[in-house]
C-alpha cells in the first residue's frame, strides 16, 4: 500500500514529468524523470543463502500515454513488473501474493528452474487461487537477459501487463569484457488490445466469482472447470454429451485480440523512455519481447552489436541496425557512441508506431547523446531548409538578412513554436 512518503515522492516525480518536455532534453531533470520510465529494481532481503523477493498482483489503472488510462493487471502496481536482478548461482526465493479475484502463476522464462517451479498451471503446479500465495524457489541460472510472466490465461494476462525482466548477471561477463560499458538499459516490449483486456477481465472476474462460490460449496466439477484428470476422463465426459468450451459452447465466439497499443516498458510514445549515451561510450541494451507481436527494431544512424540471443552470449558478436524481436525473445545489443545526435530507435513495422491506430505513437523512442551541444538543437541555425535557415546550402557564404526572413520567422514560430528540436508530434 502506498504511504504518505511514497505519495509525496510520486507527486514530485509526476510534477517533474509534467514539466518535462523535449526542449529540455539535455537538462538534469529530464534524466531524473526518465528513470521513472525505466524498469524499477525489486529489492530483496537475505534469509540465509536465499535472496527473498516479493511480488504481488492486483488490478491496476495504467496510463501508457498521457490522457489514456485503462484497467489492467500489474505486478507490484507497475508495468512492467519490477526487475529482478541476481547473480548467476544465487538462490532465489519469490513470494508471490495474488490479491486479485483471478487465478495466476509465474513462469520464469529462460531460467533453469526445477520443473515444479516452472509456473505452468496443471502441468507443474495448481494455479495460485484468489487471495492465495505461492513460494517460488530456484537457483539463478543461466546468466543473461530473461523475464517472468503470468502463465494463467496467458493470452490475456500477459498483454494485460503481467511481465517483468529477470536479469542473471555473471561477474565475469564476457560481453562486458569485449565491450566495456558502465550503463545499461532494459527495454521490455509488449502489445495490448485494451478492449480485449477489458472484456476478458470482466468475463474472467464474473466467471471466477461463480466458480469460487461453487468451490466453497463443494459443487464444482471437472466439466465446469474444463479441467480433467486424464484423457480417459475427458473422453468419458465427451461420450456423455459434454461439449468442450472451444466447440459450440461458452466462449467459442470470443474474438482474438487485435493490439491497439504498443509499449516499451509499459509506455507508448510520447511517454517512452530516452536512452542516454555519451560520445565514446558503450551502452548495453537488453531487449525483451513480452508481447505477442514481432517488433522489427531499427536504430537510426548506428549499427549495433548483437551480443546475446535469449540470454546466451554470442561467441562472435555481429553488427546489425534492424533486428526482429519475436514474441518470447530476448536480445542484448551494444551501442557504441560514435555519432553524436538524437536518434530514433523504433519498430520498423510502423503499424506498431501508433497509439489507438494513430501515427506516431507506440514503439518510438530516442537515443540521446548527453554531450550534444544545446546549440545544435536550434532549428534555424542548422536546418537544411532555407525557409527556416537563411544560410541553408550556402556553406561559408554571407548570410542573407532580409525583412522577408523576419516575417517567415514569425510564421514559423506560430506553426512550430520554439526554435528548438526535438518536439512532441502526436499526429502526422
Amino acid at each position, binding site marked *: 500500500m502506498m504511504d504518505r512518503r511514497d505519495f509525496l515522492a510520486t507527486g514530485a516525480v509526476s510534477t517533474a514529468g509534467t514539466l518535462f518536455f523535449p526542449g529540455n532534453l539535455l537538462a538534469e531533470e529530464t534524466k531524473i524523470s526518465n528513470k521513472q520510465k525505466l524498469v524499477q529494481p525489486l529489492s530483496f532481503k537475505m534469509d540465509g543463502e536465499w535472496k527473498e523477493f516479493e511480488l504481488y498482483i492486483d488490478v491496476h489503472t495504467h496510463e501508457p500515454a498521457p490522457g489514456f488510462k485503462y484497467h489492467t493487471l500489474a505486478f507490484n502496481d507497475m508495468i512492467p513488473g519490477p526487475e529482478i536482478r541476481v547473480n548467476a548461482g544465487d538462490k532465489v526465493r519469490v513470494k508471490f501474493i495474488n490479491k486479485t479475484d483471478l487465478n495466476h502463476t509465474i513462469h520464469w522464462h529462460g531460467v533453469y528452474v526445477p520443473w515444479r517451479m516452472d509456473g505452468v498451471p496443471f502441468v507443474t503446479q495448481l494455479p495460485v487461487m484468489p487471495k492465495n500465495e505461492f513460494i517460488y524457489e530456484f537457483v539463478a541460472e543461466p546468466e543473461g537477459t530473461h523475464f517472468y510472466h503470468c502463465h494463467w490465461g496467458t493470452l490475456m494476462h500477459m498483454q494485460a501487463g503481467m511481465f517483468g525482466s529477470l536479469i542473471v548477471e555473471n561477474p565475469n561477463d564476457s560481453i562486458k569484457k569485449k565491450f566495456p560499458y558502465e550503463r545499461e538499459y532494459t527495454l521490455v516490449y509488449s502489445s495490448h488490445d485494451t478492449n480485449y483486456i*477489458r472484456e476478458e477481465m470482466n468475463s474472467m472476474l*464474473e466467471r471466477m466469482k461463480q466458480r469460487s*462460490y461453487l468451490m466453497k460449496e463443494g459443487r464444482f466439477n471437472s466439466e465446469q472447470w474444463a479441467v480433467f484428470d486424464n484423457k480417459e476422463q475427458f473422453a468419458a465426459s465427451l461420450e456423455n454429451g459434454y461439449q468442450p468450451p472451444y466447440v459450440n459452447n461458452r466462449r467459442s*465466439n470470443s474474438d482474438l485480440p487485435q493490439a491497439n497499443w504498443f509499449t516499451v516498458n509499459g509506455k507508448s510514445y510520447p511517454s517512452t523512455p530516452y536512452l542516454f549515451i555519451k560520445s565514446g561510450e558503450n551502452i548495453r541494451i537488453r531487449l525483451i519481447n513480452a508481447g505477442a507481436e514481432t517488433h522489427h527494431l531499427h536504430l537510426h544512424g548506428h549499427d549495433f552489436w548483437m551480443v546475446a540471443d535469449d540470454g546466451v552470449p554470442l561467441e562472435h558478436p555481429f553488427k546489425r541496425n534492424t533486428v526482429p524481436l519475436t514474441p518470447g525473445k530476448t536480445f542484448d545489443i551494444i551501442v557504441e557512441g560514435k555519432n553524436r545526435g538524437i536518434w530514433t530507435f523504433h519498430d520498423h513495422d510502423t503499424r506498431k508506431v501508433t497509439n489507438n491506430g494513430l501515427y506516431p505513437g507506440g514503439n518510438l523512442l530516442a537515443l540521446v547523446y548527453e554531450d550534444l551541444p544545446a546549440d545544435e538543437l536550434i532549428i534555424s541555425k542548422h536546418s537544411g531548409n532555407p525557409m527556416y535557415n537563411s544560410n541553408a546550402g550556402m556553406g561559408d557564404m554571407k548570410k542573407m538578412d532580409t525583412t522577408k526572413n523576419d516575417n517567415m520567422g514569425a510564421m514559423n514560430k506560430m506553426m512550430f513554436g520554439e526554435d528548438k528540436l526535438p518536439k512532441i508530434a502526436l499526429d502526422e
Partner: protein
Amino acid sequence: MNNVKTNKMKKLIYLIVLFFGIANAQITPEFEIGAKGVFSGNLNLNSEESSAVSDFSDTQLLMGLSQKLYNNWRAQFVLGLQFPDANSNLGEVFYNNIFIRLEDQKNMIKVGRTIAQTNLNEFPTLRDDDAQQFTYALNPFSDGINTERDQYANVLEYTHTFKQRFFVSVHGENFYDSLEPDDFRLNSTGLTLMYKVPESQRWNRNVIQEIGLSYNNYFTDRQGYSNDFDASVKNLLFSTTLNLKPDPINFIDFRFQAIQNFGWDEVNTLNDYFDYTRTESSTVFGTFRYLKQKLERPHYQVSIGGGYKSLPNLEVDSNQLLFIANSFYRIGQNFDIGLQYRYTENTGFTEGLFGKNEHRIQLAVVYSFSKIFNKQFGDRQDLLNLEHNYIR
C-alpha cells in the same frame, strides 16, 4: 454549356472528396446489434370461437451506435423495429425504439421513443405483452387496439444514479393518443425510484434483487375539472424481484408488481378501452422462476405466475384473472424452444370488453442475439466499472 456541366461535375467531386475526407476522419462507433425472433403456433380455446394461429409478433431488431463524448460523457443512438400483431393497426413494422441516450457515471438522459417507465419489471413470459393488462400501467389515451401504444412512448427522461444501484428518474412522455394522433405534446409525467442490483452481480445477491416505486400522472381531459392535476389519471406502481435461491446453477427468483390506478369516480361502466384505463383498478402480478444453468450458460427455465385485477368502482362486480406457466429449453446458442400455457378469465364489464375466458397454448422457437462490434468502452454494469469505476 459544357463549362457549366464541367463546373457542376467539379463541385460534385469536391463534395464527394470532402464527405469521404470527413467520413474517414471519424472514429468508428461501437455498433451493437440485437435481434429477437419469437415464432409460435398458438392454439386459442376461448368461450366464443377457437382458433389456431402462426404468430411471429414481438419479433424485433435493435441497432445501437455508441461513442465517447468529450468530458467523459457517452452517447448512444438506438433504432429498433418490431413486428406487431397482425390486427394492431400499426402496419407491418412498428418503430418501437428511436432514441438518443447521453450518460456519464451518474447521469442518464434519454430522448426519443422507447419503452416507458409504466412497467418496472421484466416477467418471464414468452412475449412481452402476454400479461399486458396486468403488468403495465395502461395508456389512458389509447383505444387499446394494440399493446405497443401502452408499452412505448416518446420520452424525455433524466435519471441520476447513486452508488451504482439507486436510480431516481424524472420523466415526461407523449403517449399515443388514438383520438388526436398528431398531438406530440407531453401528456404524462412521472417519478421513478429504483434499487437494482447490477446484472453481473444478481446471481449471488441475497433476497432483494430489485425494488422500485413509480408514480405516473397522465394529463387527461376530465369533464368538469379545469385543474390539470385533478383532471389527470394517476397510477402508482410498486415492483420487486426477490432472489429465493441465489445460486449460479439452480437459481430461483420471485417477481412481483402491483399497480394502483386511482381512476375517476364517474367511470362506473366500461363502454370502451378508454373507460377501462380511466376507472379505478388494483392489479397484482407475480411469477416464480426456476433457472437451471449448465456450464455457465442457461440450460432450461420453468416459470409459473398469475395476476388479478379488480375494478371496484364499477356498477357490476368486475375483475380479471390470469394464470400463466411456461418452460424454455436451450437447444443451441441463442435458440430456445418454449411451451406456454395461459388462461384468462374476465367477469362483469371486463367480460363484455375482452371475452369471458380463454385458454392459449403456444409452442414456440425463440431466437435472441446481442453482440457489440468495435468495442471501445466498458458497460455500466461491468464488474470492472462496478468495482473499479470504469465509466468516468
